[in-house]
């Protein structure tokens, strides 16, 4: 086998593996990414029920209700719109009213968001960046609050 043939085999197999990887990546990107929406996005875009997505905003003050068997319901707000959320399970330590939250799940036909994952912040100083942006978009972000984020 000449050097040229060997190089061809090498390049051919590299291209082959890369093509497989590209196919896997494109396939996976189509099926497995999750979009992030603010409550306003959901109301304005008229998102179809059943799509998997993330929503983020603040846990509306006074909206948290705990039921039997670890049922929790609360509302996520960005100041302009609220989306009711249902969740069964244990919410994170830093899940609190008036604080930032990100939930992943599906929107039901009635407009309730059924979450199977609730993420809060890692630390009381930070707010999820998506939440900050959502609040900024809705005009409810006061720069005074920047201290909560930038510090």
């Amino acid at each position, binding site marked *: 086998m000449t050097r040229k043939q060997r190089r061809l085999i090498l390049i051919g197999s590299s291209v082959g*593996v890369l093509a497989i*990887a590209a196919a896997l*990546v494109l396939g996976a990107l189509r099926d497995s990414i999750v979009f992030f929406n603010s409550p306003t996005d959901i109301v304005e875009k008229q998102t179809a029920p059943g799509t998997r997505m993330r929503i983020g905003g603040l846990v509306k003050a006074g909206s948290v209700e705990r039921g039997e068997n670890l049922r929790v319901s609360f509302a996520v707000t960005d100041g302009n719109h609220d989306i009711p959320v249902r969740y069964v399970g*244990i919410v994170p*330590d830093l899940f609190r009213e008036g604080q930032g939250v990100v939930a*992943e799940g599906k929107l039901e036909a009635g407009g309730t968001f059924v979450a199977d994952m609730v993420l809060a912040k890692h630390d009381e100083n930070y707010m999820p960046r998506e939440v900050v942006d959502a609040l900024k978009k809705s005009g409810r972000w006061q720069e005074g609050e920047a201290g909560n984020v930038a510090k």
Partner: protein
Amino acid sequence: MIPELGHFALVLALALGLVQAIGPLAGAHYRDAALMRMADSTALMQFVFVALSFAALTVCYVTSDFSVANVYENSHSTMPLIYKYTSVWGNHEGSMLLWVLILALFGAAVAAFGGNLPATLKANVLAVQSWIACAFYVFILLTSNPFLRIAEAPLEGRDLNPILQDIGLAIHPPLLYLGYVGFSISFSFAVAALIEGRIDAAWARWVRPWTLAAWMFLTVGISMGSYWAYYELGWGGFWFWDPVENSSLMPWLAGTALLHSAVVMEKRNALKIWTVLLAILAFSLSLLGTFLVRSGVLTSVHTFATDPSRGVFILAILVFFIGGALALFAWRAPLLKQGGLFAPVSREGALVFNNLFLTTACLTVFVGTLYPLALESVTGEKISVGPPFFNLTFAPLFIPLLFAMPFGPLLAWKRGDVLGVAERLMAAFAVGIVAIAVTFVIKGGQSVLAPFGIGLGVYVIGGALIDLVERTGLFRLPLATVRSRAAGLPRSVWGTAVAHIGIAMSLIGIVAQVWADERIVSLKPQETVSIAGYTLSFDRLTQRTGSNFREQVAKFTVRNSGGTVVGTMDPSKRTFPARATTTTEASLLTRGTSQLYLSLGDANDDGSIAVRLYHKPLVLLIWLGSVVMMLGGGLSLSDRRLRVGAPKPAKKAATKPALQPAE
């Protein structure tokens, strides 16, 4: 006074760094021995000054000097002493100081142990290393100075993020940084080789031990971070495919590829250009990781504070070093001469296969990590790429890699016989298939793929053992001969086998999580919950007070199916008044390599408390595997041919015959 000294020491380190970045480079160019030798002393002194600076910050923390802004923001006088030490790097500024400390440490190590490096190569390596160091000194001094004072010192600090108040902070970041930053040496070697326009097998022999050492630390650093997240976050998960985790996985994948391609270069003088490129990429990915984690582009527990100027600064460093190195590569790489020939089916071919799949896997992680950022900056749309993406892309690429793994060490250099190797691996195939069958019988059809994963792991272990058995002549030769052959076997052969066994162990541990059980229930005292043959009874709820927290502890007694008490578990919720935060402390009960995992949720008004209970079969294998991988790396590192600073060509001739597979 102490913080000012620390600040001053860092400025001096920068001054020395600038001298070292220019002098030796000029010395190597003009063949001026005195200028070249200067790099040794500046590298050592740089380390001394950075160490002084780091020590100064440590003193500020230990003495709770809240007049220093950094200490005020991240410490508290009642914090246990160990966390006062670790909180030095539990914040952005301090962690960058640790970063440069390790960078300077590696530079000093090259100066001290690189005695028999060619003078010009050593001078160039140290100069390049110093360029990196200077960039980060300037970054710290201009944007992240940990020594800034507060005019009126507060009486009390704001405490360290409670999640970080854990022994994990003492272990994970230093190990991870030793790995991350360790790749800077391979990078400097690669850039130095490009500057000289000359590269040979000896170069690979110098680079390999450094890469190997960095790789060992990175392996354990990542896995200790994973274990920490597992027990601290209270979710029972060990890997979330979070962008921050991915940014440590990418250099690991590139570094693993580099380790293997450097073998080909050292032994066969082939794959030179590729090896140089990998060395550049491994550290580039480390820099990218630093950027992603430290710039505030991502939000995670690792992002301490966001400040746009820092992000832009690190991005500039990133562009300069990656862009510069790649441009140099494009310009100079054609000068490097092509090396030895080999057939596609050969040890070299197998290592190329390894490299191909590792770098492609690295690429998929890269896409999954950066695609959301790119999409957001282009279209403003926010998406998250989670575990499903990586399960669909990364896993399919790792399966062929693991399947081919036992073939590599058994194939001959230059021209191998794949069918012959398959025949020799017959026993490994057999145990793999038996493992699949046994798993199916025990676990039934809960998951169709998982038993094959277990079988793959068992087969890889079998393959690694066959390699050792063949080389030592076990079962074939008299025991005394076996013993002497085992002793005569190069350590790197043992290292390969052990590291391969380690990755198989991790694989088995990961796959076995398919059979993990979970119970999320609300319990009142005296109630019980059962999982995987264990019954836990909730005895009572008590209060405890720590030095800077209060905690609510739930006491559980664990019984096995026979009703015998096998242990107690006491998960808790800690409240830290200084930050008004709560953390969940999970309780773990280890049975063999499996674990029961119990963490608390919220207490309800009726006296019940929510608990999350998991049974995680073989879960400890995930992290034990990484420790075994590190041991393998250590064995390889102790190989006399690879010992840092001892790459004597004469030794190679003496040990080489033993490296051939036993025919």
